[in-house]
């Protein structure tokens, strides 16, 4: 601790023969030169030291050997005096003995020395330490130092009041009774408000004085019983990320509550705080779900909150996993009530439509949506199909919407055979459904023949319905004219038509025609896939039967079991 200047302001001169007022001017008879007005607090303290230790000051300036015999004696006495002063009164006589003591006191008396001189000479840095910027507080001007001093007093006062408050909180918790009034101790709202103000003031002062980073949580009354576990980065670290101090603080509290497995409203708020800074932290989301389930909080409320977060973080994956967990948890509570189920399905769809209008091909949202259809049994829901049709009308190239349509139509458990793979034929799918979907896809192909989505869809529907690809030959041929009849004559409105036509011809064992399609694709219409079309041509010649083009592949007998 820095000397408070107590001794310096009241140096007690034992001999007053030559002094005027020792507190204002240097009056000792010895060698110290008249110092100038101090500019820094260090200087001031050093001057004060010298004022009370004239022999020591003189020795420092000139060296012991250059002092007069008188002064040397004075210095020795001064040293011994300070040495003995440090000892307990009872043992002082042991050190020197009565005779020596007497001589010292006699000398001290004779040399006008100040008995209560300052013990240590103030030094830069070590005496006051540094401020938050690493500067020596001793280098402060007097005014600045005084201001800092006032702040420290203010902080101490606040800390005392804060401790009183915390003790009262503790008393209230234990149901203590106030001894004077005889009433139970109650911490009022007002007192809590006052404490909040106090804490923010304390935090500001601490930051100002010491640069201590105290985040919201350390200041908060709510978190005072938690000891945060700050994380340590070992040596050799890679991929360190510059993150805000607030994040580090929040994570250290998260670590603490996760260790004790605390589930509470404050933990829920903590997860919200972290999610606001980093919505991609999967552990935080999982911990949030655990809190919601443990506290049995309202799932619709959580979903409402989640909607906001999802809209603000479109590319986030964890949000959708969280939603998935919430629905899994919520579903059993409404599954027996068809109205509640329908209501919930509608709410979910409304939100999904809203978020997909912002980001039409968001993979996580579509993935959640297809899962939700199965979970809530939305297969027969006309609105679902309508909203998909609307999206395809808005952007016929939106492959995500096409994909969802396929699931919606062909995974309906009402007729779909369970366990059938997507690429497998399913006899149970009604013929009129297959026809309807083929027609739907064809109408969309007319809008943009080079759009691959409806071509893939149509082919997928035919396979699912177990129909030969040749059943759409007429339609496909509309997009290809005079193939191979000369550069000028030949017209291809869609490479996908030519591709499918090759398959149709191969299916009908018209390999030459199929080969022509593939050759024209490779030569002219789709050169960037030349290698692929050539491979398809090779497959044609290698397999006279309808064997798949991958026949060069070695068939492993073990199959899956080999794994």
């Amino acid at each position, binding site marked *: 601790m820095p000397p408070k200047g107590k001794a310096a302001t009241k140096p007690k001169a034992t001999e007053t023969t030559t002094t005027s007022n020792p507190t204002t001017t240097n009056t000792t008879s010895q060698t110290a030169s008249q110092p100038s007005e101090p500019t820094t607090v260090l200087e001031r303290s050093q001057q004060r030291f010298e004022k009370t230790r004239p022999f020591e000051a003189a020795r420092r300036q000139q060296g012991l050997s250059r002092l007069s015999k008188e002064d040397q004696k004075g210095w020795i006495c001064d040293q011994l005096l300070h040495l003995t002063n440090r000892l307990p009164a009872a043992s002082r006589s042991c050190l020197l003995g009565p005779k020596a003591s007497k001589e010292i006191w006699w000398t001290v008396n004779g040399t006008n020395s100040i008995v209560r001189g300052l013990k240590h000479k103030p030094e830069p840095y070590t005496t006051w330490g540094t401020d938050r910027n690493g500067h020596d507080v001793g280098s402060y001007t007097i005014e600045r130092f005084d201001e800092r001093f006032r702040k420290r007093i203010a902080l101490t006062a606040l800390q005392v009041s804060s401790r009183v408050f915390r003790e009262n909180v503790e008393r209230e918790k234990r149901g203590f009774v106030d001894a004077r009034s005889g009433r139970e101790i109650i911490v009022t709202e007002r007192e809590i408000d006052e404490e909040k103000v106090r804490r923010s003031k304390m935090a500001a002062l601490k930051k100002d004085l010491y640069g201590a980073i105290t985040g919201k949580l350390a200041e908060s009354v709510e978190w005072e019983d938690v000891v945060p*576990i700050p*994380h*340590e*980065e*070992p*040596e*050799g*670290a*890679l*991929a*360190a*990320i*510059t993150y*805000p101090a607030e*994040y580090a603080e929040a994570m250290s509290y998260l*670590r603490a509550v996760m260790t004790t497995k605390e*589930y509470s409203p404050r933990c829920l708020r903590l997860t919200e705080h972290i999610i606001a800074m*980093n919505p*991609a*932290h*999967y*552990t*935080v989301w*999982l911990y949030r779900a655990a809190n919601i*389930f443990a506290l049995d909080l309202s799932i619709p409320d959580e979903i409402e909150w989640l909607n906001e977060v999802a809209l603000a973080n479109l590319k986030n994956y964890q949000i959708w*996993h969280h939603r*998935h967990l919430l629905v899994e948890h919520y579903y059993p509570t409404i599954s027996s009530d068809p109205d509640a189920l329908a209501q919930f399905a509608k709410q979910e769809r409304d939100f999904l439509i809203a978020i997909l209008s912002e980001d039409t*091909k968001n993979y996580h949202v579509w*993935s959640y949506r297809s899962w939700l259809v199965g979970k809530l049994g939305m297969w027969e829901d006309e609105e679902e199909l309508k909203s998909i049709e609307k999206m395809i009308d808005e952007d016929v190239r939106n*492959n*995500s919407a096409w*994909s969802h349509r396929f699931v919606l139509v062909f*995974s309906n458990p009402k007729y779909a055979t369970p366990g059938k*793979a997507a*690429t*497998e034929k399913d006899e149970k799918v009604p013929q009129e459904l297959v026809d309807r979907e083929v027609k739907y896809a064809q109408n969309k192909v007319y809008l943009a*023949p*080079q*759009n*691959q*989505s409806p071509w*893939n*869809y149509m*082919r997928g529907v035919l396979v699912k319905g177990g129909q030969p690809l040749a059943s759409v030959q007429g339609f496909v041929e509309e997009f290809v004219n005079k193939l191979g009849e000369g550069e000028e004559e030949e017209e291809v409105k869609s490479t996908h038509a030519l591709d499918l036509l090759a398959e149709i011809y191969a299916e009908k064992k018209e390999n030459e025609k199929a080969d022509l399609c593939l050759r024209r694709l490779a030569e002219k*219409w789709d050169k*960037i*896939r*030349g*290698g*692929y079309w050539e491979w398809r041509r090779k*497959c044609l010649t290698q397999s006279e039967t309808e064997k*798949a083009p991958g026949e060069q*592949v*070695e*068939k492993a007998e*073990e*199959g*899956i079991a*080999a*794994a």
Partner: protein
Amino acid sequence: MENDNKAHEEPEQEWPYLDVHRHLRYWKMCIRAPLPHVYLSNESNRLALAYFIVNSVTLLTPPPSKRTPETPEPLISREDKRAMRKWVLHHQHPTGGFCGTSSLVFPLNSYDTYNFDTKTLDEPDHAGLANITSTLFALQLLALLADEEDEAAGENVFEGVNRVGTLRFLKSLQREDGSFGEALSDLPGHGRFIAGGYDMRYCYIATAIRWILRGDVKEGSPGWVEDFDTEALARYILNSQTYDRGFAGNSQDEAHAGYAYCAIAALTLLDRPLTSTSSSSSSSSSVPHKSPLLHSSIRDLPGLIHWLASRPFVYLEPPPPSADQDPDTYIYQEDDLDDPNFLLPPTPSDLLCLLSQTAEKKGHDKTHVAFNGRTNKVADTCYFWWVGGALANLGRLDSLVDREAARRFLLEKMQHRIGGFGKSPGSPPDLYHSFFGLAILGLLGDEREGGKVRGFDAGLAVPRETVGVIERARRKLIESEKGGKGVVDGGKELDAVEMGLELRGGGERPKWLGACGY
């Protein structure tokens, strides 16, 4: 952007070329300097970022045998490697598996779950902090950080890895349907459950961890761990083929190139031989082996190839934002490209017409070919890798893709002037895309990149030398578990366990020790 650099940087090279100097400068920046705040969203998975960095640096650092006196000092020194390996190991969870970030590594005593009511130790609750993704990245990192100057030391990179615990952790992440989740979590009212979406990535990662650690330990021998259900996993993967013949997280989702890669690579890894030499002589090829399982099991293999071959498309430069700018010299900023690069004209004839016009103007017909990840989506650097990697595992990378035009697109349009690759033309580089850009170049093995980029393994996504390290390190780790040799002596470890129990004051044997493999 290229011309100013040509002069001092190997002037004989014909543009486009991989500007190794700038890429290395970019990666140097990423190694030690803290990453900017935008990476905060990756805080929970910092090992992934570390993997991108170290893998890229390794790809660009010639192996010792190919170094010449002119080769610059490797960016990561031997001492740094040692410290980094230690850092990676620090993420290991006490019962196996790895955490994604040091902020999820708890002080050891907090794993100790003493129950004051029953006065026993419960099973550790914090299993949720280890993560399947981080576990693979940690193992790959340890191998990537092997000291290449000293092959014997390289064998020891897995020293300290809790092999048995990690394999058990892996098994605990498999769901009933065969798929994998990413982590274990305790949910009140639901018990311990497997968290994570139905995501093909986890399935791939599971097979990679299995291949790296499991080895050929026979049942009953020390170090044997019950395998996860490979058949169920394979069935799950195979059922995820979609109606348009690609692959998705499951068959109800939209086909996606990233998931197609994961599905294909996972099947390949399930029957991949444990050492490269014992199979075909393909140690110099990107394809580790011709997986019988992969080729025999996929329902519509030609369809899958069709879907993959549909991912490349002709990249057309959008018109400059204002008429007075020259389209040939204008450098696009990300903001200019609302719909970055899916500007296909309505009919094939229009496209051909446009291409011939451009060719006439430029005096050559060198097109750019970009890759998308889904039908009708825009170009993205990483899909060149996901599609290329998938095709490589199928053994078809060479014959199906217009490599020249694709390479041209990558190097001319995606290479950034400060080094690294961006996500789309004009966008700034990031760790993820910068790594995958290099990975696909390593996979293509173009001789113009010869010596600049190491050959890359399409299944394990590390340079081929690193696969060798993994094989040797696995053998060493298993040997040491069998007892006798090695630093992690099995017998000694058990002695240590007994000693630890004694230090606890004897009493009941904690249940979790079993979970640790003792």
